[in-house]
């Protein structure tokens, strides 16, 4: 089967995942087209993080299929490195490498993993650091940056690998309220540039603004989904209504 850009970039079909006895995902299916921004929302412990971590094979699944540009992720012979070159990820805790400067954090993987020329990688890295509005912080270590700045470096680091899709796992949840906005703005810029994004978030206003499609998960299943307008105005399922009433 040959993948074409007209097919979903990421396609999950009946994905099941458990940690030992604990069933975390119970048959999740969703499609993400190229250039789409989808937001996954839901109560704590409903399996949102697990869901997106399966997409870049940080977690394995027991049953079902995950296709990334036509490549099956649920395959014992999967080339994880090839998959992860296509799928970037940004974490709640930033996870920058503390012994490397911002610039090194951004350019290290392109040089070491993609074997890019060092000078070219540095040029790209500097441009990306400008893009996330951190010009002048190239030589700062993560410990010298605020949470919001670190998270933007992490986004630049992920972008430097030129992924086709980026996973964001509650990337603003650990931030001070005053720095949340700058990170959301950076993601908004990405979305406008046409980057395919899968976001787990608790920022409802943001989800409403940038998402093409919203998915609501509870106890390992997708309870309800739809475009933001219908989703937020006309939620049908009582669980969705309850969640939205608590959070809005």
């Amino acid at each position, binding site marked *: 089967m040959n993948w074409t850009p007209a097919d979903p970039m990421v396609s999950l079909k009946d994905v099941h995942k458990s940690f030992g006895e604990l069933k975390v995902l119970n048959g999740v299916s969703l499609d993400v087209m190229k250039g789409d921004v989808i937001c996954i929302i839901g109560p704590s412990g409903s399996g949102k993080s697990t869901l997106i971590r399966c997409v870049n094979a*940080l977690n394995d699944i027991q049953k079902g299929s995950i296709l990334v540009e036509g490549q099956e992720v649920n395959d014992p012979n999967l080339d994880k*490195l090839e998959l*992860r070159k296509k799928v*970037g990820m940004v974490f709640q805790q930033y*996870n920058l*490498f503390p012994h490397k400067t911002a610039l090194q954090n951004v350019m290290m993987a392109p040089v070491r*993993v993609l074997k890019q020329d060092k000078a070219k990688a540095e040029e790209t890295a500097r441009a990306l650091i400008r893009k996330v509005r951190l010009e002048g912080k190239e030589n700062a270590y993560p*410990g010298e940056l605020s949470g919001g700045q670190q998270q933007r470096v992490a986004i630049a680091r*992920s972008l430097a690998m030129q992924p086709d899709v980026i996973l964001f796992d509650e990337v603003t949840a650990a931030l001070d309220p005053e720095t949340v906005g700058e990170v959301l703005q950076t993601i908004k810029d990405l979305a406008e540039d046409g980057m395919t994004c899968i976001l787990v978030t608790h920022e409802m206003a943001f989800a409403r603004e940038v998402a093409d499609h919203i998915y609501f998960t509870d106890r390992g299943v997708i309870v309800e989904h739809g475009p933001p307008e219908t989703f937020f105005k006309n939620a049908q399922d009582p669980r969705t209504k309850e969640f939205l009433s608590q959070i809005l």
Partner: protein
Amino acid sequence: MTYRTDLPVMLPVKRPEAEPFLGLKLWHMLPIALIAIIGPSLAFAQSSADGQTPFGILLNWAPLLLKGFIFNLVISVSAMALGTVGGAILGLGQISLFAPTRHGSWFVTQFFRNAPWLVLLFFAMFLLPFEINVFGLKIPFPDWFKAILGLSLPVMANVSEIVRGAVRSLPSGQWEAAESLAYTRLQTLWLIILPQCVKRMLPPWMNLYSILTMATVLASIVGVNEVMTLTGQALASEGGRPDLLAPFYGFVLLLFFVYCYPIAKFTVWLEKKYAVIT
């Protein structure tokens, strides 16, 4: 920052007190130690028969004892180097994804960590041949070389635990971030994990070195000509005079103190320095 390990040297250190004990500085220790040694010997001096004071006798022997002590240091540095290389490999083996390697490394580590150093030394002494034959070439295994091998075994096991503890103490997010950037496991270890571990490993590693240095005197029991052996021989050739015991062994204590105390001080300083950064 919390270490998940049962290794005492890896446990969180108590913040050192700002003021040194009784306001004493390093150099204060020297005269105090000297007085402690010379004091008793002066007391004995009156009873000495042949006119030469114990301190004078010690001075005659001092160059030889110093040479013996330097031999102790050679043994300690060599055993540390060997043990560190072996321990680094064993420690990485303990975090291998390949279960037999992991279990094997764990077993070897635990075996040598829980064996008395002296017993390991005896094993190395009496199980290793005094020479080996490689293609007709006879390579001798002198006693001091066996002592180095014997002492490097427990060092190796302890370094292995230090490496494993340091790697485990890093947040798992570092691994995940590296994985999601498509680094191979080897690259992740080499570029991301180990560089961060070095800082954490340095203080316990230096602690271990101090302990090893002091343990080198065990080699005297198996007949290596290090400082304790030489001290015993010197005392014997002076006719086993009891008034010489305090100055001679005091001198040996002083040598070890002068060498190990600055290392301990430096370790504490490193711990303080890195505790702030991480």
